[in-house]
């Protein structure tokens, strides 16, 4: 035919504007309702992992700073708990609305500080953070209905330690139920991503939350370890690595301190031969390349029925070639920057181990910026269940493909892990989906979707993925104790 155009059509750069963002040069600790200089802490820069440029200087809390935060929280908690639930709810609704009002700014800062694509911070992280506050605001005056009619009271002062992969969202997961139940909370954001938590502190001020009810105390692992061991804390909620979770549990052994842990995972994403394969491929992509694979429930162990394995891998590899890797602030970016140099080194080490052990590696060829931390989407085939890349959490954009022959083998392989956080099932057969879901040792099982989050649904792990649930009515329990118990 004669009609032919010779244009190659590509998307022009579409960076989100940053001129509306009002970042300060330096942030203090948020203690007692105000930003304070650290007493025995120090100031550290937080950097943009896509450029390695510093964004702001942030105060890290020392032991005395934590003491002050706990003291302020203890002073504020009784009055907060004594408020009628509907009054506490008003504050939470206010926080939720303020998150929505400042959504654009929060999304940009989340992408700047953490490296995740703006598309995700804008469409997932920030709306879900607001949704969690809305959800738990609704529970504040209905707590008895969330715990089957028992008489309950708040735990008291809770220490909350959140990871760097979903900084604001994890802060919302922790703070919203704690506050709804009448606790005061001391939140430690991760060392590489403290900024949105500090913006949330500004929001708490704007919402006129009573001073001391929320403290935001940035710092590194040492700060977290001090917080865990500090007297005056009634409960610890931690999301992060299994190694640190183990340390925390050891430190709290024999003490009357509540604990919930949401730890690592090596979640199985199971594709049966009767699945809608193209949609399964989308689910695989969303399962492992969402947020650069920095997701505790990432579908990093891909189990494909042998009869369709070649087909699915071919489709997946083709689809991976379409992923747009680069500037997190570009609205068309699918995969952004790795969160830190440390995490990049860990990913590189495990990928090298995968190659040494004989798995076949394929990495998408893409131009990434010279500065910053980047790792191109990677697929491993010929993986055996004993390989390190099939066992250990990589926490990066790396998927390991294993095959199975029968439903029984799929279940056995999926459960053959020290973790048990999440799983995905891809099949067009309803009965099979329910059968397999019931047999999987995983806290969350997604059917024909993956990495789908909702504030009404409980999230948490089996085995070494931790214990306790967040989200929905189950998420209230860890923040309440039975009266007289």
């Amino acid at each position, binding site marked *: 035919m004669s009609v032919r155009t010779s*244009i*190659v*059509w590509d*998307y*022009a750069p*579409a960076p989100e504007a940053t001129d509306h963002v009002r970042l300060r040069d330096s942030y203090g600790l948020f203690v007692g309702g105000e930003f304070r200089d650290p007493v025995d802490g120090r100031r550290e820069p937080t950097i943009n992992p896509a450029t390695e440029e510093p964004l702001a200087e942030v105060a890290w809390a020392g032991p005395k700073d934590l003491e002050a935060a706990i003291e302020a929280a203890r002073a504020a908690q009784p009055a907060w708990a004594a408020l009628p639930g509907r009054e506490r709810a008003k504050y939470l609704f206010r926080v939720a609305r303020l998150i929505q009002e400042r959504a654009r700014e929060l999304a940009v800062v989340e992408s700047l500080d953490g490296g995740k694509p703006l598309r995700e911070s804008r469409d997932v992280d920030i709306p879900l953070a607001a949704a969690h506050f809305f959800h738990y605001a609704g529970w504040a005056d209905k707590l008895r209905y969330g715990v089957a009619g028992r008489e309950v009271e708040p735990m008291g002062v809770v220490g909350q330690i959140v990871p760097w992969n979903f900084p604001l969202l994890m802060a919302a997961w922790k703070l919203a139920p704690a506050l709804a139940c009448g606790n005061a909370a001391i939140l430690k954001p991760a060392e590489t991503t403290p900024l949105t938590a500090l913006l949330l502190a500004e929001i708490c001020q704007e919402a006129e939350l009573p001073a001391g009810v929320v403290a935001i105390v940035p710092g590194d692992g040492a700060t977290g370890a001090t917080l865990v061991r500090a007297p005056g804390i009634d409960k610890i909620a931690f999301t992060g690595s299994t190694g640190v979770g183990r340390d925390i549990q050891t430190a709290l052994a024999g003490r009357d301190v509540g604990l919930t842990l949401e730890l690592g995972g090596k979640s199985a994403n199971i594709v049966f031969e009767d699945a*809608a394969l*193209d949609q399964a491929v989308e689910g695989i992509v969303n399962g492992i390349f969402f947020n650069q694979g920095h997701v505790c429930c990432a579908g990093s162990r891909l189990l494909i029925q042998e009869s369709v394995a070649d087909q699915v891998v071919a489709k997946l590899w083709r689809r991976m070639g379409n992923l747009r890797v680069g500037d997190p602030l570009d609205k068309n970016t699918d995969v952004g920057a790795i969160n830190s140099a440390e995490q990049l080194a860990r990913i590189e080490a495990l990928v090298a181990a995968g190659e040494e052990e004989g798995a076949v590696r394929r990495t998408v060829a893409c131009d990434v910026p010279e500065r910053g931390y980047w790792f191109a989407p990677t697929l491993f085939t010929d993986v055996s269940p004993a390989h390190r890349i099939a066992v250990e959490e990589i926490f990066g954009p790396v998927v390991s493909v294993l095959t199975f022959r029968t439903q029984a083998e799929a279940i056995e392989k999926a459960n053959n892990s020290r973790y048990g956080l999440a799983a995905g099932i891809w099949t067009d057969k309803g009965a099979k989906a329910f059968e397999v879901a019931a047999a999987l040792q995983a806290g969350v099982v997604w059917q024909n979707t993956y990495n789908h989050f909702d504030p009404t649904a409980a999230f948490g792990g089996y085995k070494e993925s931790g214990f306790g649930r967040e989200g929905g009515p189950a998420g209230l329990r860890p923040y309440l104790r039975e009266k007289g118990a």
Partner: protein
Amino acid sequence: MIRRLPHVDRVGIEERAAMLGKRSIKTTAKQQGIRLAVSMLDLTTLEGADTPGKVRQLCAKAVCPAPTMPEIPSVAAICVYPALAGVARGALQGTGVRTASVATGFPSGQVGLDVKLRETEDAIAAGAEEIDMVISREAFLAGDDARVQEEIVRVKEACGDAHLKVIVETAELGSYDHVRHASMISMEAGADFVKTSTGKAATGATPGVCLVMLEAIRDYAERTGRIVGFKAAGGVSTSKAALHRLVLVKETLGDEWLTADRFRIGASSVLNDLLMQYAKTETGRYGRSEDFSKE
């Protein structure tokens, strides 16, 4: 023949299609995309009131959509009823814009095969270079895939050198599984293009329907090596919708499908919206619809 339906997950396909609608197409990409969309248009008029005069005016518009913006290319084709194919061909002689005619009892297809073949032959004799046929939904929904396929094979024979686009009329098929299955039958039977809709049903080329058909084309090409084109028709009335369809094609089939011999948009009102949006990228302000001729 036992019918084996493919699996398409409705939620998954619509999520992916919607996500691709969020691609940010700005500045040079928008200008280039609009020019590309214009060059892939099948500018269509399928009304009982169509006359030779109306068709000639539309043909002039097809050849030169915006005299004030010479960088805007001609559209790919004009699409009319068989009775007006001769008028269109005469008006388009030597312009590079092709003449397409609907046929086979369009839009319902509820006539016998002999009538369908006769109508196809008449349209080609009158000058149609492309035939847009409809599948027999009556046979498809009754489970008679063999008859659907046989009719396409026969119409394809009647087409000779003319290009055959097969309309599956997605709005009447009831499920994405059916859309994929009908697309596969059409390709197996020899379709040069598969096309979503007649434009006469309740819905047309929705993003989900387009994505299902594009995936079917991709899988068929991978299996057989034969290239089949795609035409999105019905409901694509804004520049945003047109650019969304381009994104769907680009990220499902790849850049090599972004040519008028592999991808078409069947529409009428979208052309002026494309021109207005293009003018906006040049002047920075939205024009009025009166700035461009209706036909």
